[in-house]
C-alpha cells in the first residue's frame, strides 16, 4: 500500500453482459459484421480469382437475381431454408437441439417420392397433392418423435441422437433408391413422372414455384401464431426457459417435449415434400443438402424472430446462388458458395458476442 511497490500499467479488458441494447445499435453491430464478412469474402475471392472484387460482387448479384429464372431459384431456395428454420423454431424455443432436420427432410421427401412413384398414375391429381402433404408431415413427425421419446423419458442426449437419425435416414434413402432407380443401374432415381408430372407442384398463375412460396408463407404465419398466441406455444416456451417453473405451473414437461418435436419433425418433413414435389422432382441422399444444418444457424441467429429469419435466409441464399454463378463465370466449382456461406456465418455468429457483451478497456495499476 505504500510507494515502495513497483508499479506497472497494464491494459485490462473487461467483458460486461449488456442489460439492454437499443435496436439500432444491435442491428448496427450486425450490419458491421455483414460488411466485414463481405470484405473478407472479397479478399478470399480476389486471392482465388485475381478478379476485381467489385466485378465479383456484381457477378454475385447477377447470379442471384440477374435473370427471371435465377431470381426464382433464389426465391425457391430462400423459402426452403425458411420453412426448415420455421420448423426448427418450436424445438429450439424448447431448448431441444434438433440437429436432425436433415433426416426429417429426407423422410418427408421419401414419403413424397414413394407416393409419386407408386400412386402417381393411379390417383387423380386433386387427391395426390393432399396425400403427399399429409404423408410427408407424418414421415417427418415419426423421425422427430423417436429421439423426443428418449429425451423425455431417459434424458438421452438429443444432439447426438438426432444426428445419428440423419444418417439412418440417408441409408434408408439409398435402400429405397435400389427399388426406385431409373434407369436401372444408374443408382439414381431420376426425374419422377417426367411425362405425366403426377405429384409435381402445379404451375399457379404461370409461376413454377408459386405453390412452394404459398405453403411456406402459410406455415410461417401459422407457426408465428402458434408460438405467440396458443397455449401450446406458451407451454413449450416455459419448458425451454425453466423446466422447474414449468412443473410449478403444472405443465407436463414430457408431453410437451414429445408434442413439440412431432410438430418440428412434421414441418421438416413437409419441407422434404416441397423439395421433391416442388423443386427437384427426384430424391437422393443429398436432397436435404445440408439445409437442415444451415437452417439451425438461421433460426438461432434470428433468435426465432420470423422476420429476421426471412432476412437471414434470403441473404444466405442470395450469396450462395451468387457465388455459384461467379464460380461458373470464373471457371471455379460450385463449392465456392459453401466457403462464402461459412465465412458469412462465422462473422454473424461471432458478432452476437458484441450484441450481448460490451467491452470496457481500462488501465490497471499492478503492484508487484
Amino acid at each position, binding site marked *: *500500500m505504500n510507494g515502495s511497490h513497483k508499479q506497472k500499467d497494464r491494459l485490462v479488458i473487461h467483458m460486461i453482459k449488456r*442489460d*439492454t441494447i437499443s435496436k439500432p445499435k444491435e442491428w448496427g453491430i450486425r450490419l458491421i459484421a455483414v460488411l466485414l464478412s463481405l470484405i473478407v469474402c472479397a479478399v478470399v475471392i480476389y486471392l482465388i480469382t485475381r478478379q476485381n472484387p467489385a466485378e465479383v460482387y456484381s457477378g454475385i448479384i447477377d447470379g442471384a437475381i440477374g435473370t427471371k429464372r435465377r431470381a426464382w431459384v433464389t426465391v425457391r431456395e430462400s423459402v426452403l431454408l425458411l420453412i426448415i428454420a420455421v420448423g426448427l423454431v418450436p424445438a429450439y424455443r424448447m431448448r431441444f437441439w434438433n440437429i436432425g432436420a436433415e433426416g426429417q427432410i429426407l423422410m418427408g421427401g421419401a414419403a413424397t417420392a414413394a407416393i409419386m412413384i407408386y400412386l402417381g398414375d393411379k390417383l387423380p391429381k386433386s387427391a395426390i397433392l393432399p396425400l403427399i402433404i399429409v404423408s410427408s408431415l407424418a414421415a417427418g413427425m415419426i423421425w422427430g418423435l423417436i429421439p423426443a421419446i428418449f429425451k423425455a423419458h431417459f434424458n438421452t442426449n438429443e444432439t447426438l441422437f438426432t444426428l445419428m437419425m440423419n444418417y439412418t435416414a440417408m441409408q434408408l434413402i439409398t435402400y429405397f433408391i435400389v427399388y426406385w432407380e431409373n434407369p436401372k443401374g444408374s443408382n439414381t432415381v431420376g426425374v419422377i413422372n417426367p411425362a405425366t408430372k403426377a405429384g409435381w407442384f402445379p404451375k399457379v398463375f404461370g409461376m413454377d414455384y408459386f405453390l412452394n412460396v404459398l405453403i411456406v408463407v402459410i406455415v410461417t404465419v401459422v407457426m408465428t401464431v402458434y408460438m405467440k*398466441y*396458443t*397455449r*401450446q406455444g*406458451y*407451454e413449450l*416456451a*416455459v419448458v425451454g*426457459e*425453466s423446466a*422447474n*417453473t414449468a*412443473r*410449478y*405451473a*403444472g*405443465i*407436463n414437461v414430457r408431453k410437451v417435449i414429445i408434442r413439440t418435436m412431432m410438430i418440428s419433425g412434421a414441418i421438416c418433413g413437409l419441407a422434404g415434400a416441397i423439395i421433391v414435389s416442388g423443386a427437384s422432382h427426384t430424391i437422393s441422399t443429398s436432397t436435404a443438402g445440408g439445409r437442415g444444418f444451415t437452417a439451425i444457424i438461421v433460426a438461432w441467429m434470428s433468435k426465432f424472430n420470423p422476420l429476421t429469419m426471412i432476412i437471414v435466409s434470403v441473404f444466405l441464399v442470395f450469396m450462395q446462388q451468387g457465388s455459384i454463378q461467379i464460380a461458373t463465370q470464373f471457371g471455379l466449382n460450385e463449392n465456392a458458395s459453401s466457403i462464402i456461406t461459412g465465412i458469412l456465418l462465422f462473422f454473424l455468429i461471432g458478432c452476437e458476442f458484441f450484441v450481448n457483451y460490451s467491452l470496457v478497456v481500462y488501465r490497471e495499476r499492478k503492484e508487484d
Partner: protein
Amino acid sequence: MAQEYAIELKNVTKRFGEKVIANDNVSLNLRKGEILAILGENGSGKTTLMNMLSGIYFPDEGQIIVNGQEALIRSPKDAFDLKIGMIHQHFKLIEIMTAAQNIILGLKGPNHLDMKAIRASIEELTNRYGFDLEPDRKIYTMSVSQKQTVEIVKVLYRGADILILDEPTAVLTPQETEKLFDVLRNMKKAGKSIIIITHKLNEVLEISDRVSVLRKGRYIGTVDTCDATAESLTEMMVGEKVTLDIDRTEPVDVRPCLEVKGLNVKSADGTRNVLSDITFTANTGEILGIAGISGNGQKELLESIARLQEMESGEIKFYPEPGSCITLEDKKADEVLQMGIRMAFVPEDRLGMGLVASMDITDNMMLRSYNKGDNPVFTDRKTPRELAQRVVDKLEVVTPGLTTPVRRLSGGNVQKVLVGREIASGPKVLMVAYPVRGLDINSSYAIYNLLNDQKKKGSAVLCVGEDLDVLLDLCDRILVLAGGRISGIVDARTSTKEELGILMTGGKEEA
C-alpha cells in the same frame, strides 16, 4: 515472541451495492491453536466475513492481519499462500474423480502422476488426524460427510494452518458430527487454528474455545465458551425484541383449512429424511409462520403441500368449505391445478421457479391462467394484461412497462409481480417462502400488508420467514422446524425470540 493471534480482523466493512451492508465495522480475532465459533442467525454476515478471509470478497474498509502481518487477500490463491483454507458449504469436487485426484487437483508437480506416492502422503495426513478416507474412492459414491472429509483433507494437503469451516454440521448426522469434532480436536492439538461457522448452540458449547457473535452484520462480542450458556448465547444472537409497525388483526372465522398428518419426505439421494413426521393444521383467517434455520425442511414442506415434491408417506387434506374435504397427497401439481383448487404458492426461488425470468410481466401473469378460459387453443392475453396492469398499479411495481422481462426488475418488484399474481386468484391457501428476502423496508411492508389482507379475506396463510421480529409481529401462530421435525408450535402473541431461538436450534431435544 511468537504471535498470539493467527488472524486479526480490524474494523472490517463490506457492502453490496448502496444499501446492503453485509459486515459493519467488524473486529475479531482468532488465537493460534484454538477453535473459534462464529455464531449468528441467517443473514448475520458470517459467511461474507469468512469469504473475505478466503479471497472471495475483498473488504471495502478495514484491515486483515495474518500472523502479525497485514495481508491483502485478493484471490483464493492469496489465501492459500497465507495458509488459510476454507471448506465451503457447497463442495467443489469433481464427482467422477477419486478422492486423491480431487485432493491434488490444480497443484503443481511432475506431470506424471505417481498415485502411489500421492496416496501414501494422503494416508499419512489422514492417519495423523484420524480421518476416515479411502483415497481411491470416487466422489459420486460418497456420502455427504465423506465428501466433506475430502474437502478438509484437500485444504490440509495444501498446507493450510488456518481452517475455516462454513456450517460443516448442517448436512451431517449426529454420529458424523461427533466424528468431525474428533478430527477438529486432533487438528487443534497439532497446532492448527480453526474457525467454525454455525448456529447450533449445543455444538458451539461442545467444540469451541471461544464464541464470537454476529447479528445483522454487526459484531456483538466474544465470550469464552466455558462462561457461556445456551441462554446467554441466544440472547446475544437474537438481541432485543424490536417492535415493528405491522398491523396485526385478530383472526376471524377460524376453522381448519389445511391439515398435514405424519408427512415424511426423503432427500433427493434417498439417504436421509428431510421431513419427519410433520403434523399440523393451518386455519382460515390466520397467518401461520414457519420458522427455522434455512435448510431444515421449509422448502420441502411447502413443495409437498403444492404437490411438487415426492413424499414418502403422510396425508394432506384440504377443506375448501366446512364439511367438504379433498385429499391432496395422491395428486400431482398439474392435477391440483386442474381441479381448480385455489392454492397459491410464492416459492423461495422467484426467478427460477415462480416466474420465467426472460418473459415479460403479462406473460408471467399467464403462467397461472394460460390454460383457463373458453378458447381451448389460444391463450387469452387480455385478462393477464389487465391483471398485470392492476398488479403494477396497485402494488406500485416500478417497471418501464408491461413488456419488460421480469429479469430486469429489481428484487422487490419481482416479488411484487409474483405475489400479485398469486393472490389474484383469491386463494384459499397462500404459501409464501421468504417473502421479503432481499427487499427494502418499503417493499417489505407492502408485502406484509398483502399477507394481512389475505388473512382478513379468510385465507389460510403459511409464511416461511427468517426474521424472528417479523414473524412474531406478523403471524398468529409460529411453527418451528429443526432438523426436519416440528420442534414446537407457539402463539406468536405471547412467545419470545429466545423461545424461538432455542426451538430453532433444536433445544427441545435437549430438554
